[in-house]
């Protein structure tokens, strides 16, 4: 039987751009170019490697986001994913992580899955809790923050490098996995891949297709509220000296003046 892999990806504002908040204190997605979150490329890469090892596998890449989020799906398809699902609905604007996990869980279930693979965190919200939330909602094992992952005989195994220890984990499928940026460099789409991606199917779903009501998601349905967002004051310009042979001593003098030594 075919191994059904769903990779959850996010379309995020480019971290090297001038990211800021919109008037309603949601992330502004208009003024800064968007792209597939760099950390999700690792998830796509591991999906492709797992699919290569399996006798028969199909990779669906899934996103929740505005119209432009299709760019993220195209990138994943050009890397080699087979098909895409795009959940898009005006009522989704401002959805928090709890709501996003609800939408993704519904979409994953509708798509059908044996293995869900996520990146370790998004590069905009950076919470890193979506995979755990998704596992909770789906009622399947979470095998998260893996720097190595493999699937064999219906069991997913991997290594999780934590703060105090490195752990070997295993769970039976179906399961939710997340992979870190240590899991292996993501491939670049080939020209052939980019051309092929244009013909791959992208299914669009709205809230109604997922049996969700507008008040379960969006800014109004969020279980958290952002009251204010302020730009951090720029750090005041410091003293810069050129080393003329005494640079280390000058630095020590500065540290002493600040009572660090």
């Amino acid at each position, binding site marked *: 039987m075919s191994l059904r892999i769903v990779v959850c990806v996010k379309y995020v504002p480019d971290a090297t751009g001038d990211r800021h908040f919109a008037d309603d204190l949601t992330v502004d997605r208009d003024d800064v170019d968007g792209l597939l979150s760099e950390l999700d490329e690792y998830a796509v890469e591991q999906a492709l490697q797992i699919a290569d090892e399996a006798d028969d596998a199909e990779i669906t890449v899934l996103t929740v986001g505005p119209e432009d989020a299709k760019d993220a799906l195209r990138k994943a398809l050009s890397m080699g994913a087979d098909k895409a699902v795009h959940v898009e609905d005006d009522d989704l604007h401002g959805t928090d992580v709890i709501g996003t996990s609800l939408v993704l869980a519904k979409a994953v279930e509708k798509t059908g899955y044996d293995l869900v693979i996520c990146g370790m965190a998004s590069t905009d919200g950076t919470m890193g809790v979506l995979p*755990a939330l998704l596992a909770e909602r789906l009622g399947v094992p979470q095998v998260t923050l893996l720097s190595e992952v493999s699937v064999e005989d219906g069991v997913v195994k991997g290594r999780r490098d934590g703060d105090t220890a490195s752990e070997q984990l295993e769970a039976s499928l179906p399961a939710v996995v997340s992979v870190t940026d240590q899991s292996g460099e993501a491939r670049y789409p080939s020209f052939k891949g980019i051309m092929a991606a244009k013909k791959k199917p992208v299914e669009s779903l709205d809230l109604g297709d997922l049996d969700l009501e507008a008040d379960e998601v969006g800014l109004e349905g969020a279980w958290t509220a952002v009251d204010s967002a302020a730009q*951090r004051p720029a750090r005041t310009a410091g003293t810069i000296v050129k080393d003329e042979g005494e640079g280390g001593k000058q630095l020590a003098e500065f*540290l002493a003046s600040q009572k660090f030594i």
Partner: protein
Amino acid sequence: MAEVLVYVDHVDGAVRKPTLELLTLARRIGDPVAVALGAGAENTAAALAEHGAVKVLTADAPEFADYLVVPKVDALQAAYEAVSPAAVLVPSSAEGKEIAARLAVRIGSGIITDAVDLEAGDEGPVATQSAFAASFTTKSRVSKGTPVITVKPNSAAVEAAPAAGAVEALSVTFSALATGTKVTSRTPRESTGRPELTEAAIVVSGGRGVNGAENFSVIEALADSLGAAVGASRAAVDAGWYPHSNQVGQTGKSVSPQLYIANGISGAIQHRAGMQTSKTIVAVNKDAEAPIFDLVDYGVVGDLFQVVPQLTEEVTSRKG
């Protein structure tokens, strides 16, 4: 006064510093009730009582060590149901965030992660967070259910505030999912004898300019002279010069020490995301145009192999 649940991060009963900081923040909202799980849980009580815990709920079972995350969620949920707290606070470790998130969705509550400060407010606790590589500061609240908030290390001072800290056994019934993900082996990280990166008052980091694993001894020597933790940029980690566990930046650790010393680090956005909230920033870099110099309080343009050993020597002689 309302009670506030505080999830305890400990190693065999030794309470880690971020949990003590959490108790300082919890006391702003209510009476802290600590939840300590796993081997040595009861041994946490003295330290927790000294820092304000009115009660310490403990549970130990093989499941906590043998299976990933979910057994701890089950236990924290049991504590939540026993206490009906005004808020649940959890240290912002990778595991802490996952535990908090699963608890939140189970109890129908919103979640805020990676708070750097916490104050009582008219509509519940107000959390301060850093966003977009620390270029913005936001204030947020949980607007549904009991606030579940994870807090980053170094967000508050550790304060002595003696309280009863009475130990009570927590009764936990594990859910069907508790044994879903088995931990088949665990290799503890070898201690370097240096402070924990995220908890250290001073962090000394090396980047691409260190130019080789063997050269990191220069960085380590400076760190040891200052009693600091050692960090590394992603470039240095990707090159295999230093372990990923020491990586500072978006995909590594986020640090906020009193003093951050960046050596041979250009200061790409991914690195800045992990250190920009440091109180004092110092850099040594050959390239006068490196973006790291936009952040520094003091910078030296020069060869780190000249400047850093001289600094180390100076620090050692001044301290001696």
